């Protein structure tokens, strides 16, 4: 914790910072549509991601209708079911979570939290969003081509992904792969922006170690994404060529319906390696921003500095680095050499150390904090519990001997939904509630927010806890129906029905969230400046919501880290990052003692 010195040596007049040439929109179109302001782009990213996420939510309902009540809905054919699970998985992981955390929160928060006027390359930033939107449209288009979208599962494993027995193996898979390639191109443009902005555009005084953990999380996640997405890009292009030109990157000698196809010599396992070289870092591309954001939510709403800031930064960096050497734990059943399995199991368990360190530090931040159990805080605490639950089941699956029997069961589905579905979404909600006043200038309804939290949090547990049990008893994932399988008792079917009902309840509860947001935006109470008493820079803008260029006439000057809460001697329980030491209001007693020390 920073002690406040009242010495006059501290103040340095803001230097003549190099001002960025901002693009000033001249029309409605350039202000709200083809806009280069990172805040508008953030809202565009977030709106698009949430909209396509809602499509994925509906797809999950359709899946659950089939699983909970088999033979009841004749309009769901097996092909449809596979298309639903594929599109649901891909949309949620890539088009919703990645885009929302990096494109949404990244764009809004990076310039504000590091004290910049905008992103380093505003034009490229704008193009990044439009390429992302194109990727989303191409994905949606795959629902309308003959054969529909691909039903290959979100991992798109060849050879089945492009063989005719798989739904959507014509136009569907082609559009999926094109869409992914476009997404990656768009993301690379945005990602370069985020990294360069963090490295180059920080205001004076904002050293790397004074950045809020939100920025650290987004920064390291972006670096991961820049290094991991090329693997998916290469995989997508190769599979596209296999499908269109008949190359054999991934397609082995294969007989289909008695006919020997012209493919030969390709390696399906190569695709798995490429996919998971991207796929595992992807978990942390989603998780690291969530880690960062939740750290800030906990610090602000418990009025305590984050415990072990430096450890937290290092943990983020180490988790990011380790995430590149664990990918093959997704492939234990692919016939890999057992020594490789041992290696990847070991690295997987090692990654639990920095992750556990973060959980301890969050808990220790809360310890003896002045905890305010408002909506963002509830979601933050919900995240810690959920991530811990999902993480612990990950320890099981990281071990080869336990993974082999559990592989491809509902246990895996429950695990990854807890750890990278529910947990990050809880952070997304917490973050939206936390920054809603900043973004809109209005206050949301706490009552509705808390109702939303409890239904979502408890409902998610009622969905995924029973799913672990289903996995334990051997219920496989990706099965259209279990039929009259003798090994499954009647309770399996009942539990499936219960889970399905809960998904509807939790899904519909999100209406409360949207109602709260829209109503508060339209007719909510005006928020005061910095309503949470946060010390970080984004709340210190001269106007709220921040205007074009963020900082008015001059850029802020940063004197301290973002966690000066409960500073001894200070009048208020927080000191903003941009407050000079001599300007910090001190209690009389503290001021006297400072003077006597000087004397």
């Amino acid at each position, binding site marked *: 914790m920073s002690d406040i010195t009242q*010495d006059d040596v501290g103040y340095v007049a803001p230097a003549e910072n190099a001002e960025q*040439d901002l693009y000033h929109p001249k029309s409605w179109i350039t202000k709200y549509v083809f806009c280069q302001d990172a805040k508008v782009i953030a809202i565009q990213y977030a709106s698009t991601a949430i909209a396509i996420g809602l499509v994925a939510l509906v797809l999950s309902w359709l899946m659950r209708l089939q699983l909970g009540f088999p033979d009841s809905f004749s309009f769901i054919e097996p092909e449809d079911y596979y298309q639903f699970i594929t599109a649901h998985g891909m949309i949620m992981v890539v088009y919703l979570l990645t885009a929302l955390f990096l494109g949404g929160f990244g764009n809004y928060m990076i310039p504000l939290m590091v004290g910049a006027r905008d992103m380093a390359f505003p034009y490229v930033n704008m193009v990044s969003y439009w390429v992302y939107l194109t990727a989303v449209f191409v994905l949606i288009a795959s629902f309308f081509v003959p054969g529909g979208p691909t039903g290959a599962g979100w991992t798109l494993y060849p050879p089945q992904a492009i063989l005719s027995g798989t739904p959507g193996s014509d136009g569907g898979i082609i559009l999926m792969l094109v869409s992914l390639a476009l997404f990656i191109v768009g993301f690379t443009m945005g990602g370069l922006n985020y990294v360069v902005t963090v490295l180059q*555009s920080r205001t004076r005084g904002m*050293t790397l170690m004074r950045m809020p953990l939100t920025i650290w999380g987004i920064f390291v996640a972006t670096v991961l994404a*820049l290094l991991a997405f090329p693997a998916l890009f290469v995989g997508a*292009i190769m599979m596209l060529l296999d499908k269109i030109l008949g190359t054999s990157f991934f397609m082995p000698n294969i007989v289909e319906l008695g006919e020997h196809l012209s493919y030969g010599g390709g390696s399906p396992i*190569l695709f798995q390696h490429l996919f998971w070289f991207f796929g595992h870092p992807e978990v942390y591309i989603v998780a690291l921003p969530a880690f960062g954001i939740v750290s800030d939510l906990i610090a602000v709403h418990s009025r305590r500095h984050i415990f072990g800031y*430096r450890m937290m930064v290092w943990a983020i960096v180490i988790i990011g680095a380790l995430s590149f050497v664990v990918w093959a734990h997704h492939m234990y059943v692919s016939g890999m050499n057992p020594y490789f399995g041992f290696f990847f199991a070991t690295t997987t368990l090692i990654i639990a150390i920095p992750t556990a360190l973060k959980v301890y530090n969050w808990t220790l931040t809360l310890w003896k904090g002045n905890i305010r159990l408002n909506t963002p805080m509830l979601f933050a605490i919900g995240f810690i519990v959920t991530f811990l639950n999902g993480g612990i089941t990950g320890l099981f699956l990281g071990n080869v001997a336990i993974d082999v029997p559990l592989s491809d069961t509902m246990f895996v589905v429950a695990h990854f939904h807890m750890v990278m579905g529910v947990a990050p979404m809880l952070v997304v909600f917490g973050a939206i509630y936390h920054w809603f006043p900043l973004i809109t200038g209005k206050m949301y309804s706490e009552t509705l927010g808390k109702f939303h939290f409890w239904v979502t949090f408890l409902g998610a547990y009622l969905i995924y806890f029973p799913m672990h049990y289903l996995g334990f008893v051997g219920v496989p994932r990706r099965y259209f129906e279990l039929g009259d399988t003798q090994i499954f008792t009647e309770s399996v079917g009942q539990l499936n029905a219960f889970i399905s009902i809960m998904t509807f309840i939790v899904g519909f509860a999100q209406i409360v969230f949207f109602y709260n947001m829209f109503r508060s935006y339209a007719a909510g109470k005006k928020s005061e400046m910095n309503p949470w008493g946060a010390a970080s820079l984004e709340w210190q803008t001269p106007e709220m919501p921040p205007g074009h260029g963020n900082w008015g006439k001059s850029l802020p000057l940063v004197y*301290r880290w973002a966690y000066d809460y409960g500073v001894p001697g200070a009048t208020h329980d927080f000191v903003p990052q941009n407050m000079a030491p001599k300007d910090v209001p001190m209690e009389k007693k503290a001021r006297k003692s400072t003077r006597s020390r000087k004397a």
Partner: protein
Amino acid sequence: MNFFRQLTEKPWLPDKNGAIGMRDNNVSDTAHARVGLKMFLIVVGVLFFLLTVSYAGRMVYEDWRPVPQPWLMWQNTAMLMLASAGLHWAQSAMRRDEWNQVKMGLIGAGAFTIGFIVGQLLAWQQLVDKGVFELTNPAVALFILITGLHGLHMLGGLVAWGRTADKVWQRDKFELNKVRQSIDNCTLYWHFLLAVWLVLFGLLFSGNDNMGILLTICGFK
């Protein structure tokens, strides 16, 4: 190791010097572009690294059918080296303020780059002429994919080269600093793509089975 030194700071301790000692923010747009380009080149490096690993991973299978590498690849490699040298010359002439030489260097770099790209297409044609252009053979498909992606990056570079040439020819309309930065960035990009190509060529496409030897030494083959 400045980055790591920064990571060992203790931000919770009082900073008696206020804002002194912190980074100076006099960072211009051109510096942004330089850092952005370096980050982009790292991404490009990862892309070609993964393609090389894929190639190597496929080579270790017993049914690997190598194809004779077109002799034109040697000539193309020389072209790319000359293109890179042209830009290097332009860059050093720029530092000496000899703008005629800058122009010659740029023209040379552009011409040799176009020569390289055309040469790569002709190399594909050589494979067709030899009757080994069989897309179901992973060796052929990987050759086409890797050289194609590298060629696309060179084409993208030519767009930047065109913009740089425009700035050089009309440099009275631009800030000199921006013109210089454009040349610097183009040079870095060409050098990097040359380095990538030399690794690809040396390991995979020179016809000497260097990758095979490397895999054997490492015990994979």
